[in-house]
């Protein structure tokens, strides 16, 4: 008996069962069975991860349709440590979110649990599959459940609009992916990623392959929310139920980045080998744009969930730069960073959920000082902000140090400054909120943005009961996630383990070998040591975040002395950026088209 396909199958069957019995099943049974399926999935994924770590990556051919003479007709799960690790991580976060929602929702029926389990199955399938078309199908399954979960509170205006924007933008991205798959199939006659890679190694690139690559990348970057195809993310995060936001920011968005990395190294790394420099420049340009745009937007929000959403966009920019460096340290740094970021951001959303649960409001200014009655939540929230700024020596810090080293090695010495900017603004924004809400520091009113403040007040609360106290479980779950985010990086062997996993993902010829021939190859993995300047950058970003938050909260006298013209100009510039996020789906698709044209055009010009 092979358990490889079970973490995909078991949650799906469980979801179907839950839907059919939900009318007669008490709440406790629904929650406990969904959580146990989650725990079972974590266990199975962890077993698979252990096997890849021990015996190397392996391909599992569904129905026993093995490839013959390097030609595959069957469908494979091609599992390497990065894929198995992501699957485990996704299962873990789903379980945490289910545990959190146990006490978070007052009345909820089995549909929510079923959707969460299907979402889990889709994410695990997405991480494990070795077939390009299956990747797209799991992408769609993941998306469809995500749209439904966003619109879970179907009678409210915000969730309806958020789900529409999310669904249309991501569907357009998915159709880009389908088109790209069609073009690659036309060129290579294959759907298995290893076989496509092998065929393109022989064939080389041509404009058709480049267009296919651009369409696939922009499609997956839509899910990853890179600028300028990121607009859906803030809308969806602002309105989705909090446990769902945990998954969106914690792992779903990162899966888009994973897909880009997977496609590059399995399919395009061979034929595009001569153009590594140019592709690196293109991806880093997109990444830098995303990191800065997200950071600025994040700092200018007052709706706390929207603020966290833009913080995710800024970090996606860092991930994209990290992948885009196309190097060993860039990839392992991104992987490490994704683990730390996912845990931290999940915890922050859960803590924002505590505010929403208690006050039915998520506006930073409305909540001024009201958080004093829940000091523990405040302490954890501030801790999350510090972690987000990648202070030494938490998990995020190790990821960022690898990224810093990789940037210098690839000839992008200014890139660490972008990372510091992103850490400073996203960490600073969270600290600012913590200071204002939980300590009552700073101004309690901002005349601007009443519209956004209005959106932050709930139309219909997610929970109806007395909000006098916050269930302990709702603090325990984020506290353990934050503890994990601190500890994982310093566990001996954790970061080197990620470096070994990344070496497997980067091994283009090795991948083709173990999928199609069953020859496992262990690529050499170097362990990087942290340089002195990394501590300097890390500490600098953390100090910068604290200083930025303090300046905003207490710096009014200082701000009055700066020339008024300067302040007003900066205000106008930021407002112009913010106005682009209009909530209008037509605008978002216009930006999507521009992004696709930009990526496709630059690929056709520079990668030929």
């Amino acid at each position, binding site marked *: 008996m092979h358990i490889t396909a079970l973490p995909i199958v078991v949650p799906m069957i469980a979801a179907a069962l839950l839907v059919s019995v939900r009318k007669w099943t008490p709440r406790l049974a629904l929650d406990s069975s969904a959580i146990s399926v989650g725990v079972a999935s974590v266990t199975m994924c962890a077993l698979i991860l252990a096997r890849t770590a021990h015996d190397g990556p392996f391909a599992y051919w569904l129905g026993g349709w093995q490839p013959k003479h390097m030609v595959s007709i069957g469908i494979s799960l091609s599992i390497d440590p990065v894929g198995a690790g992501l699957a485990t991580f996704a299962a873990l976060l789903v379980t945490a979110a289910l545990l959190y929602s146990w006490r978070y929702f007052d009345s909820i029926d089995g549909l929510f649990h079923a959707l969460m389990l299907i979402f889990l199955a889709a994410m695990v399938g997405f991480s494990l599959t070795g077939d390009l078309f299956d990747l797209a199908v799991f992408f769609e399954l993941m998306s469809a459940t995500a749209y439904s979960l966003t619109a879970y509170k179907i009678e409210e205006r915000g969730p309806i609009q958020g789900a529409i924007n999310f669904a249309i933008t991501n569907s357009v991205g998915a159709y880009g992916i389908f088109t790209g798959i069609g073009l690659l199939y036309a060129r290579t006659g294959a759907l298995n990623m290893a076989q496509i890679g092998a065929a393109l190694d022989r064939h080389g690139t041509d404009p058709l392959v480049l267009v296919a690559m651009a369409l696939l990348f922009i499609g997956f970057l839509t899910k990853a929310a890179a600028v300028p195809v990121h607009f859906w993310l803030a809308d969806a995060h602002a309105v989705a139920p909090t446990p769902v936001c945990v998954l969106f920011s914690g792992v779903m968005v990162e899966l888009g980045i994973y897909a880009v990395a997977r496609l590059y190294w399995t399919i395009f790394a061979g034929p595009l080998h001569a153009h590594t420099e140019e592709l690196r420049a293109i991806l880093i340009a997109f990444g830098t744009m995303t990191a800065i745009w997200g950071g600025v937007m994040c700092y200018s929000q007052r709706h706390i969930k929207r603020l966290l959403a833009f913080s995710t966009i800024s970090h996606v920019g860092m991930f994209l730069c990290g992948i885009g460096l196309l190097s060993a340290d860039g990839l392992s740094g991104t992987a490490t960073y994704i683990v730390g970021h996912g845990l931290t951001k999940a915890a922050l959303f859960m803590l924002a959920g505590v505010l929403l649960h208690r006050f039915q409001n998520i506006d930073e200014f409305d909540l001024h000082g009201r958080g004093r009655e829940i000091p523990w939540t405040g302490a954890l929230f501030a801790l999350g902000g510090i972690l987000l700024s990648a202070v030494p020596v938490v998990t995020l810090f190790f990821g960022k140090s690898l990224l810093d080293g990789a940037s210098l090695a690839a000839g992008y010495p200014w890139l660490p400054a972008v990372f510091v900017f992103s850490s400073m603004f996203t960490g600073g924004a969270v600290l600012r909120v913590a200071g204002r809400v939980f300590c009552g520091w700073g101004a309690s009113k901002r005349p601007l943005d009443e519209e956004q403040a209005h959106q932050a007040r709930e139309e219909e609360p997610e929970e109806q009961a007395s909000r006098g106290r916050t269930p302990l479980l709702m603090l325990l779950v984020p506290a353990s996630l934050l503890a994990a985010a601190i500890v994982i990086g310093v566990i001996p062997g954790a970061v080197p383990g990620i470096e070994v996993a990344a070496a497997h993902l980067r091994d283009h010829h090795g991948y083709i070998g173990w999928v199609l021939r069953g020859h496992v190859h262990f690529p050499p993995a170097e362990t990087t040591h942290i340089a002195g300047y990394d501590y300097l950058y890390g500490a600098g970003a953390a100090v910068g975040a604290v200083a930025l938050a303090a300046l905003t909260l207490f710096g009014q006298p200082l701000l009055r002395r700066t020339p008024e013209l300067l302040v007003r100009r900066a205000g106008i510039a930021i407002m112009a950026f913010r106005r682009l996020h209009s*909530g209008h789906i037509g605008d978002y698709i216009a930006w999507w088209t521009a992004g696709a044209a930009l990526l496709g055009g630059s690929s056709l010009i520079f990668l030929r």
Partner: protein
Amino acid sequence: MSFLPFAVAAWLFLVGLYGIVASQNLIRTIISLTIVQASTYVLLLSIGYRTGGQAPIFADIPATSNAVDPVVQVLMLTDVVVEATITALLLALAIQAHKRFGSLDPHELRALTD
């Protein structure tokens, strides 16, 4: 093999995008989205087309005969299933939007401006 089906696919993709961008009505937006998806049907089917090819049902014809590619047809079928799901979901959301905003004009959906 004619160039025309590929041109049609590209045209459908772009005209669908234009439809979403310019739409004044959510139903029209959703129909435009299905047009974008229709472009993938045309593309996939034309990739599998063989001049003079038969239906790939090898129970009736010799295994060596000229047949169109069944793989892309299967992909297209999956694509149709996806479309049915997404369109149904979006239409349900459009009904709710009409109920809550009193309008189907995307300009009137103002719950999420930044």
